C-alpha cells in the first residue's frame, strides 16, 4: 500500500523507520513539526537524505562559514560557495568553474566503479553551471603501497578514473598519488573537474516561472545506492520482499558524454531556465533544491520517471542515486526544441512535472499525493550542529616527539635514491600513462608539471581568440595536518598556490575537499575546526577566495580515523599561455637558482617517514607572506620571460626537487650547497622553488627577487648527464630515473 499524505494524516502514530535511515529522534520530531503531521514514507525519504551529513553539511556548516566571512575581496568571484560549483572571472569575457569532490567510500567497496562514478558526479556539477567541462584531476590516497588490499584498490581506482574520464574526452592534467598505512581501510579518491563558459552564460539551479516544465533527462532510474530506501519500501510498507538493492552504482560514461554534448547544445539554444545535476539524493535533491531556489513550488508525477527496474517504489525512486541524470526547468514553448536536441544525442528526456507558485513541493503516485512539503525545509533548513571538539589526548606528546632524536644519514646519495625509490616520491607514470592528457588539444602542461595548464582560446569552438590560459594544482599532506591541522591546511593551500605560480600563472581561487574521520569524535572535530580555520585564514592572507568544495566525514577504519587530509585545489590564470614555464631543467648551461629560505624542518617529512617510519614534532612553518612574495616573483618573472624552467620544493626537499628537475628532460646539473648538506637537501621548508634562468637574465631576475624580498641563491648550472652536489655526491640521471620509475610497475604490474 502506498503511504499517502491522506493516510499519514489519519495514522499519526504509525512508527516510521527514521533511525534506520540515519535520522535522530529530534530531527524526526522537527519534520513532524514542519509538516504538522507525521511524514509519509516518501517525505521521510526526502528529509532523511537531504538532512544527511553528506547533503546538509550539518556538522561542518558552522566551520565552513569562515570561508565566506573571512573571504578576501575578489572581483574575480562571479558565483561563490553554495552553488553546484563556484565560478571565477578569468578575463576577456571568460569564466572558469571548478570543484573537487570525494568518492572515498564507494571506491573502497568497488574501486573501479566507485572512482568512475566519482568522476562522473563532479563532471555533472560543472556541466550544471552552464560550462563545458574541459579537464579533470584526481587526488588519491591509499594504504601502504605493498599492502595486499592496496593491490586490489589502486589498480581498480586508476582504471575507473581512466575508463570514465578518457571516455568523456576530458584530459587528465594532474593529481596526486600518496601512500600511508592510515588509508588502508579507507582510501581517499578526490576528483576535480574544471569547466569553461562565457561570463554571461552562467546557469543556476533554480526553478522560476510557474507553468515551466520540469524535465528529467539522461539515464533511467534504477535501484542504485538505495540500501536505505529499501528499509522504507520493504520493512514498513511492503510485505512482499523486495528485489535486491545494490549499494554499488555503475557508471555509463558514454551516456555522460552524450549528456555533456546535449547540455551544451541546450544551453546554446537557450532553452534551459534552470538546471541541476542528480548526484547523491537524486530526484529528492534536484526537486527540493530547484524548487527552493525558484518560485518556491513544484508538482511532480513520480509515475513519469523512466525506470530501469519497474519494481521500484516511490521512496526508492526518490532516493535512487542512478548516475548520468540531469533535471532542467524549461519554458513550455521550448519543450519541442529541448526534446529535439535530446533526441539528436540519443538522450532520453521526460517531462515529469511543472513549476508552481504554491510554495509547496507536491508529488503524486498513482494519482495520490505522497509528498506535500515546503521544499526549503528539506533543501536549506536542515539541522545544524555545533559539535563539541577538543584537542586530541595525544596531541602534545605527538608534537613533543620531534625528529631531533632521529639518526641523521651519513650517505646522502643513498638517502636521495631511497626517497626517490619510495612509493610516495616515485614516478607516477604507471598511473598517469593510463590517463589521456592530450584530448581536445588544449593541454599546455600536464604530468610531470607542477600544475596542469590549458589554453582557453580554442576550448570552445568558434569563440573569440584569447591568449589566456588556466592552471590548476591540488595538494594535501595528511602527515602535516595530523601534526598540526591548522598549519597543515595552510601548507596544503600554500603548496597548491606555489605549484600554480611556478608555471607562471597567477593564483586566483580555491576549491577544497576536506577528508576527515567521524565528526562525532570530538578529537576529529577539533582537527576539522583547526583545519578550516587555518585554510580560511590562509585564503585571506593570500587573497584567494574559496569558491566551493566538499566535506567527507567518517573516513575511518573502526574507531581509527585517517590522518586529517584537507586537499586543496588552486586555479590560476596566465595572460599568455605561450609564456608558461615548463618543469625542470629544460636545457644545458642555465643557472640553477633556489628561491626562499631553508630552515631545519623535518617534522612530518618524507625523510622521517621513509627512513624512520617516524611521525612527530611540528610540520614546516607556513609563512604565507613569503609564499605570496614568492608567487609574485614567479608570475612577474614568467611574464617578463626570465624563467626557462621551474619546479617547486615540497616532499623530499631540495634533493628531490633537483632530481625531478634533472629527470624532466634528462639534463643534469652541478650545484654547490652552503650549509649543512643534509638540512639543505632534505628539509621541507615551505615557500621555496627552484628555477633555471639564462645566465644573461640572472641579474635582472635577482633584482626582481630583491624587490620582493625573496631570498635568491645561485646554486650552480645545468648540464651533463649527472646530478652533482659538489663535495657531497654525484649520481647519473639515468640511475635516478631507474629508481624513480621502477617502483609502481614492480608493485602493480
Amino acid at each position, binding site marked *: 500500500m502506498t503511504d499517502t499524505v491522506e493516510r499519514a494524516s489519519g495514522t499519526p502514530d504509525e512508527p516510521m523507520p527514521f533511525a534506520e535511515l540515519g535520522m535522530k529522534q529530534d530531527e524526526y520530531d522537527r519534520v513532524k513539526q514542519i509538516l504538522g503531521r507525521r511524514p509519509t514514507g516518501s517525505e521521510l525519504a526526502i528529509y532523511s537524505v537531504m538532512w544527511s551529513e553528506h547533503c546538509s553539511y550539518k556538522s561542518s556548516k558552522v566551520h565552513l562559514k569562515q570561508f565566506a566571512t573571512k573571504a578576501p575581496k575578489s572581483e574575480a568571484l562571479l558565483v561563490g560557495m553554495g552553488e553546484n560549483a563556484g565560478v571565477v572571472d578569468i578575463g576577456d569575457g571568460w569564466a572558469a568553474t571548478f570543484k573537487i569532490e570525494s568518492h572515498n567510500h564507494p571506491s573502497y567497496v568497488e574501486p573501479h566503479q566507485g572512482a568512475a562514478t566519482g568522476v562522473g558526479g563532479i563532471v555533472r556539477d560543472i556541466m550544471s553551471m552552464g560550462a563545458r567541462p574541459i579537464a579533470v584531476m584526481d587526488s588519491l590516497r591509499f594504504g601502504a603501497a605493498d599492502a595486499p588490499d592496496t593491490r586490489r584498490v589502486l589498480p581498480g581506482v586508476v*582504471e575507473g578514473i581512466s*575508463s570514465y574520464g578518457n*571516455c568523456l574526452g576530458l584530459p587528465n592534467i594532474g593529481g596526486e598519488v600518496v601512500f600511508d598505512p592510515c588509508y588502508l581501510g579507507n582510501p581517499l579518491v578526490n576528483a576535480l573537474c574544471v569547466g569553461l563558459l562565457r561570463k554571461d552564460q552562467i546557469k543556476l539551479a533554480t526553478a522560476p516561472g510557474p507553468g515551466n516544465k520540469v524535465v528529467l533527462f539522461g539515464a533511467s532510474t534504477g535501484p542504485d545506492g538505495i540500501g536505505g530506501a529499501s528499509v522504507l519500501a520493504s520493512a514498513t510498507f511492503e510485505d512482499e520482499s523486495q528485489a535486491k538493492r545494490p549499494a554499488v552504482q555503475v557508471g555509463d560514461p558514454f551516456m555522460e*558524454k552524450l549528456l555533456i554534448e546535449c547540455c551544451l547544445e541546450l544551453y546554446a539554444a537557450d532553452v534551459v531556465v534552470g538546471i541541476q545535476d542528480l548526484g547523491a539524493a537524486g530526484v529528492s535533491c534536484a526537486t527540493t533544491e530547484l524548487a527552493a531556489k525558484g518560485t518556491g513550488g513544484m508538482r511532480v508525477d513520480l509515475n513519469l520517471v523512466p525506470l530501469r527496474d519497474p519494481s521500484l517504489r516511490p521512496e526508492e525512486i526518490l532516493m535512487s542515486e542512478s548516475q548520468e541524470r540531469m533535471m532542467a526547468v524549461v519554458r513550455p514553448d521550448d519543450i519541442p526544441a529541448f526534446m529535439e536536441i535530446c533526441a539528436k544525442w540519443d538522450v532520453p528526456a521526460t517531462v515529469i512535472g511543472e513549476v508552481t507558485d504554491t510554495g509547496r513541493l507536491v508529488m503524486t503516485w498513482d494519482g495520490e499525493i505522497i509528498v506535500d512539503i515546503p521544499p526549503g525545509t528539506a533543501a536549506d533548513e536542515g539541522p545544524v550542529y555545533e559539535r563539541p571538539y577538543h584537542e586530541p589526548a595525544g596531541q602534545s606528546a605527538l608534537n613533543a616527539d620531534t625528529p631531533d632524536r632521529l639518526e641523521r644519514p651519513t650517505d646522502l646519495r643513498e638517502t636521495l635514491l631511497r626517497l626517490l625509490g619510495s612509493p610516495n616520491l616515485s614516478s607516477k607514470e604507471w598511473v598517469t600513462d*593510463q590517463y589521456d592528457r*592530450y584530448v581536445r*588539444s588544449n593541454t599546455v602542461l600536464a604530468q610531470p608539471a607542477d600544475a596542469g595548464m590549458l589554453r582557453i582560446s580554442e576550448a570552445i569552438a568558434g569563440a573569440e581568440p584569447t591568449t589566456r590560459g588556466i592552471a590548476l594544482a591540488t595538494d594535501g599532506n595528511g602527515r602535516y595536518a595530523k601534526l598540526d591541522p591548522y598549519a597543515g591546511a595552510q601548507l596544503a593551500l600554500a603548496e597548491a598556490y606555489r605549484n600554480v605560480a611556478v608555471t607562471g600563472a597567477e593564483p586566483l581561487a580555491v576549491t577544497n575537499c576536506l577528508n576527515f574521520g567521524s565528526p562525532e569524535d570530538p578529537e576529529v572535530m577539533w582537527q576539522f575546526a583547526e583545519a578550516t580555520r587555518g585554510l580560511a585564514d590562509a585564503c585571506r592572507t593570500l587573497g584567494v577566495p574559496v569558491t566551493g568544495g566538499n566535506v567527507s566525514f567518517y573516513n575511518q577504519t573502526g574507531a581509527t580515523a585517517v590522518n586529517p587530509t584537507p586537499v586543496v585545489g588552486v586555479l590560476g590564470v596566465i595572460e599568455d599561455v605561450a609564456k608558461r614555464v615548463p618543469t625542470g631543467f629544460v636545457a644545458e648551461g642555465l643557472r640553477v637558482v633556489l628561491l626562499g629560505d631553508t630552515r631545519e624542518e623535518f617534522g612530518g617529512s618524507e625523510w622521517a617517514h621513509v627512513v624512520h617510519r617516524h611521525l612527530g614534532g611540528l610540520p614546516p612553518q607556513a609563512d604565507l607572506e613569503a609564499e605570496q612574495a614568492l608567487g609574485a616573483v614567479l608570475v612577474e618573472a614568467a611574464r617578463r620571460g626570465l624563467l626557462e624552467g621551474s619546479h617547486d620544493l615540497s616532499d623530499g626537499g631540495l634533493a628531490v626537487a633537483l632530481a625531478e628537475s634533472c629527470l624532466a628532460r634528462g639534463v643534469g646539473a652541478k650545484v654547490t650547497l652552503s650549509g649543512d648538506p643534509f638540512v639543505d637537501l632534505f628539509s621541507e621548508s615551505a615557500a621555496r622553488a627552484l628555477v633555471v634562468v639564462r645566465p644573461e637574465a640572472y641579474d635582472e631576475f635577482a633584482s626582481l627577487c630583491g624587490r620582493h624580498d625573496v631570498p635568491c641563491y645561485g646554486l650552480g648550472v645545468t648540464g651533463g648527464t649527472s646530478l652533482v652536489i659538489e663535495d657531497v655526491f654525484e649520481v647519473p640521471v639515468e640511475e635516478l630515473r631507474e629508481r624513480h620509475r621502477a617502483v609502481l610497475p614492480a608493485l602493480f604490474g
Partner: protein
Amino acid sequence: MSAARVGVVTFPGTLDDQDAARAVRLVGAEAVPLWHADHDLKGVDAVFLPGGFSYGDYLRCGAISRFAPLMDELIPAAKAGLPVIGTCNGFQILCEAHLLPGALTRNASLHYVCRDQRLRVERVSTSWTNSFAEGQEITLPIKHGEGRYVASADTLAELEAGGQVILRYLGNPNGSLNDIAGISNAAGNVVGLMPHPEHAVEDLVGAPSTDGLGFFTSILKSLVNA
C-alpha cells in the same frame, strides 16, 4: 582554387573531432563537419575519422559505429578511391567496416596507455603519408586501450608483401603483430593508424612534436595532384 575540403566525422562518443578539424585548418584546408546519422558526405575531397569512444567502445571498439548511416555512404566512396584516414577509434571503425584488414584488440599489457611514441614511416606512397621520407622516424602520441593489431598470418604476409604497413612502432607499446601502428589498403587511399597525428601539430600543446602535420600536408598534396 578553393581550399581542399576535408570531412571530419562525429559519431556519438567521438572525442578528437575538434582536434582533427583544427589540424585540417592549420594546413590551410577547410574542415567540414560530417554527422554520423546523415546519409551525406557533403561532397568532401577526403574524410578524417577521428579517435574517441564511439558508442562508448561498448561491445567492441568501432563495432556499432560502422553501421551508421554515414558509413553507408563512406564505404562505397572509399572503395571508389576517396581518401579516408582513421586514427585510433577511426582505425578501429575502418577495420570493423572491412575497409582495412585485421582487427584491433586489447593491449597486451591490459592497460590503457597514453604516451609519446617513436614510430617509423614505412610507406610514403599513400594519400596520407606522401610528405614523409621513407624510413623517417617521428613521434606521435598514442592513447588507447585496444590498439594491438592482429590479422591472420596470410593477411599479414599480404600486407607486408604489398607494402601496406605504413607505420611501425619503435618499441612496441601494445603487442601489435609485426609492430604495426598503421596500415593502408592496397590502393593507398584508405589509411588507419593508432597514433594521433592531430595531437602533434602545434608546439604549445599536445605531444612534444609537430610530426603529425605531415599527414595533413600529405592529403593536401595528393588532392592538388589528383
